[in-house]
């Protein structure tokens, strides 16, 4: 790709001066940045620093994919947004923020779920992908689409105090292709085995650190300056301030680009990650309104909260606390003679608890509170604390 014809205005030269005067970087690398098109998938905790630094650095075209709207619980770590953006689509809020940061950057926004139908079409126009998504189906989707389209995929992921960074599917100067996500993790964990951040939480500054490392690798991949993380996998543990770098390599049995690839097009990633199988087994539900009716009428029922003790401490609605992890051990505490309403924060963990109790212990009287305690607060007791 030729970047010789890339020109800079006087304002741009002034803006990028601190890049241009680095001998190893210079005007050449700055031209490559301006020439490049980067797609950032997810504009949340990781996407915020990635987008801010890439826009500031002068990447010519940046695409942003996100379907979500800004929520007040985002602001603890998603530094792209302010309180005035709560309730607005993230991609639009991000675009406004980045335009005010650097008007020389072209921004394309996609206010949509990335899925098997639209991924190739969106990704194909970009040179580099930065994956900052928050779930396994999209991780595998982004990986497979990047491999099929031969795009480098700059990967970062976080959980509580720990982050991971690597560069996948990168072809080095000698034409040698590096490993991708499926070389590292051929298949995802079954749902429920690995807690999500919504359950486990994340320290707000961690995505700031890890997302900045991701932005660094994007810039190195574009400019060719330095050694990228291709073939290496970095773990950062914020608690003890330790980072470890592991060697990773391509595997012959990689299903997408090993010796006998079995995946030649995008698949159904929800199904691949076992999510559909779980959805197909519905549990009995109760709405907040029905529960409230029961309470008002003084119906006999038991209310169980399967969240963690620290969540219970923040806010509770007088339920008996049996955290998801101890439901099996404490099944004796759960009544069988009257209806039992099970709730968590939004309804995911309580559904898991009900399935477990039904399958293992044959309960038939369990009802999942739709929308969890958050819905209850919204509809019944708005004065309670939301988190």
């Amino acid at each position, binding site marked *: 790709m030729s970047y010789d014809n890339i020109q800079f205005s006087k304002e741009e030269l002034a803006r990028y001066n601190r890049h241009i005067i680095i001998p190893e970087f210079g005007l050449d690398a700055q031209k490559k940045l301006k020439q490049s098109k980067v797609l950032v998938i997810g504009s*949340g*905790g990781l996407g915020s620093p990635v987008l801010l630094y890439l826009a500031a650095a002068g990447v010519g075209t940046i695409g942003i994919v996100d379907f979500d709207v800004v929520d007040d619980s*985002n602001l603890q770590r998603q530094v792209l947004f302010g309180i005035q953006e709560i309730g607005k689509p993230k991609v639009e809020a991000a675009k406004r923020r980045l335009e005010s940061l650097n008007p020389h950057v072209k921004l394309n926004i996609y206010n949509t779920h990335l899925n098997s139908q639209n991924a190739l079409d969106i990704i194909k126009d970009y040179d580099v992908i930065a994956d900052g998504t928050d779930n396994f189906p999209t991780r595998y989707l982004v990986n497979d689409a990047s491999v099929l389209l031969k795009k480098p995929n700059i990967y*970062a992921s976080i*959980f509580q105090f720990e982050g991971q960074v690597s560069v996948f599917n990168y072809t080095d100067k000698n034409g040698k292709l590096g490993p991708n996500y499926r070389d590292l993790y051929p298949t995802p964990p079954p749902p429920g085995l690995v807690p999500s951040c919504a359950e486990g939480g994340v320290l707000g500054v961690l995505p700031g650190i890890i997302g900045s490392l991701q932005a660094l690798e994007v810039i190195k991949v574009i400019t060719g300056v330095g050694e990228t993380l291709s073939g290496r996998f970095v773990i950062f543990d914020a608690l003890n301030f330790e980072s470890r770098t592991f060697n990773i390599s391509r595997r012959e049995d990689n299903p997408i680009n090993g010796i006998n690839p079995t995946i030649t097009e995008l698949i159904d990633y929800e199904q691949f990650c076992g999510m559909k199988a779980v959805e197909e087994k519905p549990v009995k539900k109760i709405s907040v309104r029905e529960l409230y009716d029961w309470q008002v009428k003084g119906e006999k029922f038991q209310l169980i909260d399967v969240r963690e003790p620290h969540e219970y401490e923040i806010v509770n609605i007088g339920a008996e606390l049996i955290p998801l992890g101890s439901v099996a051990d404490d099944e004796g505490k759960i009544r069988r003679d009257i209806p039992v309403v099970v709730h968590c*924060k939004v309804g995911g963990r309580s559904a898991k608890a009900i399935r477990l109790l039904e399958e293992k212990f044959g309960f038939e009287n369990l009802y999942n509170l739709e929308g969890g305690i958050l819905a209850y607060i919204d509809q019944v007791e708005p004065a309670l604390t939301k988190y």
Partner: protein
Amino acid sequence: MATVIIPTPLRKFTNNTARLETKASNIHETVEELTLNFPDLKKHLLDDKGRIRSFINIFVGNDDIRNLQQENTTVQDGTIISIIPAIAGGISIKK
């Protein structure tokens, strides 16, 4: 003694211990010892057939045991064994 580093998501199964010492001489023994001492870890590390799960990577020093001698990879005094599960990152309360 070798040291096993337990990743954040699995620490709740090891009484919040991040580092464990082991006298095991290879990875197979290390995993056996871990799951014996912390039975709740077992389903997270091993599948129904007792094989290390595909979303769990074990590194000895800087290298993936899949590029060494798999579970027969030997560990020595001072070896650092890292267990690295897949994490999806970010936050989504809609899930």
